[in-house]
């Protein structure tokens, strides 16, 4: 199974700012996935990140709000832009059915 790490593990941010979350995998993978878990809720897929092409976003998620980078086969970033308290969630990176430890974001 892939070993997935995320940075930061948690953060508290102010409304209107942006946060970039990093995801590092210990092996090369074609696709990386970003999920969101809102408080007390299940996981929802935000987007699929392919190396060398633009990310594919799920319904309800847009690139301006959640820009994604995928510079190589082991790394991806998700940015949460212009944050509001509704963005307070755990954001998880996933590869081949395995999940990173998550980034717990609180927006004040």
């Amino acid at each position, binding site marked *: *199974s892939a070993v997935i790490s995320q940075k930061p593990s948690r953060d508290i941010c102010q409304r209107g700012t942006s946060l970039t979350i990093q995801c590092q995998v210990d092996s090369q993978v*074609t*696709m*990386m*996935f970003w999920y969101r878990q809102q408080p007390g*809720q*299940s*996981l*929802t*897929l935000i987007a*699929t990140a392919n190396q060398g092409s633009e990310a594919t976003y799920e319904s309800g998620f847009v690139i301006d709000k959640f820009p994604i980078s995928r510079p190589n086969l082991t790394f991806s970033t998700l940015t949460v832009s212009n944050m509001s308290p509704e963005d307070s969630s755990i954001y*998880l990176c*996933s*590869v*081949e*059915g*395995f*999940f*990173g*430890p*998550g980034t*717990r974001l609180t927006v004040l």
Partner: protein
Amino acid sequence: AQSVAQPEDQVNVAEGNPLTVKCTYSVSGNPYLFWYVQYPNRGLQFLLKYITGDNLVKGSYGFEAEFNKSQTSFHLKRPSALVSDSALYFCAVRVRGDSWGKFQFGAGTQVVVTP
């Protein structure tokens, strides 16, 4: 469209008793089904998956799940629950047509095991 349902928000069980967490699915074709566990302030941990083959799937930490095609169910089981099994459990189905990683998750079931 693929989907899974977890009919119970919470399951309470005494330590040492059998634990069952229910999941039903709705998919076209053969389902790829998964169970994950989430401990407080932790990420999602993979428990087991059903792709094909034996209907009884054995996974991590002594968990198993039974795939039942006629009942469209994939219930998670543990013969003897431990207090440390208290956590949030998610059933998930892989979305067909995509590579590994695109899942539809159930709402989750909170398991509480009392000493």
